[in-house]
């Protein structure tokens, strides 16, 4: 066996070297994805199960596509039509799946920490595909890859993460990954949408989006969820958009070569103006394309050794 890590639960587990290793392998799979038949036999005979307790068609399809392009067998455990609906507990579910002899469990859950819990119960490798407001490591990896693709390196880049940082797993993984690769991260949000404490976060805070945009190399917009209104975190979506939305006026403040990123799905007209999402600086579609290659790299690095 290799000494490669068994699970991918947090970007913090990877560190700069680990991220770099994933991105290097990703290069190969971007090339594979461009082939007429985008498939390699690297994981033939291995089984990958996607276990999504929270709806996410995009992320699930991306992982399943990645696994298939590596020739792995893919099983999809759909919570909505399963034993979970009959009251089966998390541990019984994952131990049952594990007992079938699977190699990797790709876990998405609405509660922070579930992938770490699952990793303690199973023999398979666990990949965190998003856990509550905690982390979404493969999103951060594909974001790093996309930025590197356009700008060569993250070293010294100024990256603004804008929006609901408090509830965002994308932001938590992003801050860790971007800063590990040398970027300067600024969080831009109203105080009610920032975590209560930023002690130990390698990031600074601003409430002045205009000022930040003028000097930004990357503006990374987070999805604004309408339920934040009912929690009285914001007076209205309209007020949010006025202060923190990437409107056409604000997009004009960005340097010419700045990148606009978003993890999807977009709320056009809320955190991002419809036409801005389609500007040349927008790499939102590239993020999706790179997502498959990055997830191929992650699965390959976790499972690629002799089984």
């Amino acid at each position: 066996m290799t000494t490669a890590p068994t699970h991918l639960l947090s970007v913090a587990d990877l560190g700069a070297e680990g991220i770099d290793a994933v991105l290097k392998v990703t290069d190969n799979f971007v090339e594979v994805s461009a082939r007429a038949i985008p498939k390699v036999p690297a994981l033939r005979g291995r089984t990958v199960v996607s276990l999504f307790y929270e709806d996410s068609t995009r992320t699930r399809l991306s992982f399943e596509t990645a696994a298939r392009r590596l020739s792995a067998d893919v099983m999809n455990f759909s919570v909505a039509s399963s034993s979970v609906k009959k009251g089966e507990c998390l541990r019984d579910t994952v131990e049952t799946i594990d007992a079938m002899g699977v190699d990797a469990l790709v876990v998405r859950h609405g509660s922070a920490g579930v992938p770490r819990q699952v990793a303690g119960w199973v023999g398979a490798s666990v990949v965190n595909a998003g856990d509550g407001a905690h982390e979404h490591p493969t999103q951060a990896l594909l974001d790093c890859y996309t930025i590197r693709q356009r700008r060569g390196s993250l070293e010294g880049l100024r990256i603004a993460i804008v929006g609901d940082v408090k509830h965002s797993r994308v932001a938590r993984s992003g801050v860790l990954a971007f800063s590990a690769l040398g970027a300067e991260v600024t969080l831009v949000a109203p105080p009610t949408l920032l975590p209560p404490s930023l002690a130990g976060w390698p990031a600074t805070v601003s409430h002045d989006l205009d000022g930040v945009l003028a000097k930004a190399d990357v503006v990374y917009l987070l999805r604004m969820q309408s339920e934040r209104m009912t929690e009285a975190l914001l007076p209205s979506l309209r007020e949010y958009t006025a202060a923190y939305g990437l409107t056409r006026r604000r997009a004009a403040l960005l340097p010419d070569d700045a990148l606009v990123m978003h993890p999807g799905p977009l709320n056009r007209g809320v955190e991002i103006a419809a036409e801005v999402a389609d500007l040349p600086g927008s790499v939102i579609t590239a993020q999706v394309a790179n997502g498959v290659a990055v997830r191929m790299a992650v699965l390959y690095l976790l499972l690629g050794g002799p089984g």
Partner: protein
Amino acid sequence: MSPPGALVIRGGTVIDATGRREADVLVVDGRVAAVGSGLEAPAGAVALDAAGCLVAPGLVDLHAHLREPGFEESETVETGSRAAALGGYTAVVAMPNTEPPIDTAAVVRHVLGLAAGALCQVAVAGAITVGRAGRQLAPMGEMADAGVRLFTDDGSGVQDTALMRRAMEYSTALGVTLAQHCEDAALAAGASMHEGEWSSRLGVPGAPAEAEELMVARDLALARLTGARLHLLHLSTAGSAELVARAKATRSVAVTAEVAPHHLVLTDAEVASYDAVFKVNPPLRSAADVAALRAAVAGGVLDAIATDHAPHPQEAKELPFDQAPPGMLGLETALAVCLTELDLPVERVLALLSWQPAAIAGLDDQGGPVAPGSVANLCVVDPAATWVVDAAASASRSRNTPWAGRKLTGRVRHTVFQGEPLIVDGEARR
């Protein structure tokens, strides 16, 4: 329950509120008959060796969730009292958040009936409000007549300030104490841990220290207004300790306060494991809170160490962290954790675990002194014995101890309840 005959505890150091002396303790018919060196025991007396050990009044826990009636899969009065006896306790106060809740004299009598066969004295705390729902006063008078001395809606605090004022006013005629679980429900809504650096990093919703401190401040003001006796349960923050210190300094409020062993040792950093065994309410706080609580214990601001023993079945503790119920075991480990972790003389630790809580709970036969005429509720502790906590070996029906695998120094060797040696050399005799 005390067996006929006599019992002699030989070779130990007797410690109680009156001091410390090398002495044997002779127990006859459930009461201490003599304390002195080289005591002659009657023929047929049971002898317990206490060489190198401390002989102290049995411990008294102000805060135990025995889960019966209603949650017998987690704990029963019998299993909880067994855990208590193994931990050196001769009395526990059972919290009323059962199903049904202990909010009438009928339920009080039911639980006291279950307690008749327990391995320690089980006093019952009654609910302040009907169903612990916070809307209407529970019949405190009839519960007081049935023997209740402590009232609380523990598990949640009484949110309605006017209702809490009325409860306090009403309590003064009954000579009882109101105990509050201090937590502003709106500010703590949705929380699963302490709000701060770790909750922010882990993406787990947190409750700020202020959610506790607001109710501490409110209830201190209400106690001053009404003249009621107030006991503050499981305080967990530096700010709470400061509020209590200030209130005590004015001598205008009849207030006592307790702290749990886990809040004196563990911090919110434990939650990084996402192991719900570390989920508890109030939550594990910051290192600064732990330091302030330790100082408050050392300085006499806090009057008692109480376990908040809260058993939960394993499957409940294996839920996702934000869905798992809060609570941790404590009865079997409290004394050893305190002896191991707190930099306090053993007399102070025993005061906080025995005679001070006995006074708060109004339990006349508990907390010593170890003197002729006293009911023989005693524990014999080997302060030098080291042991490793084994969750699977717990007498509790549950396994949710945060101390599993920890090496502790200080172990209960014998527990004598009403003259009966229930625990001998760490083993239960019934």
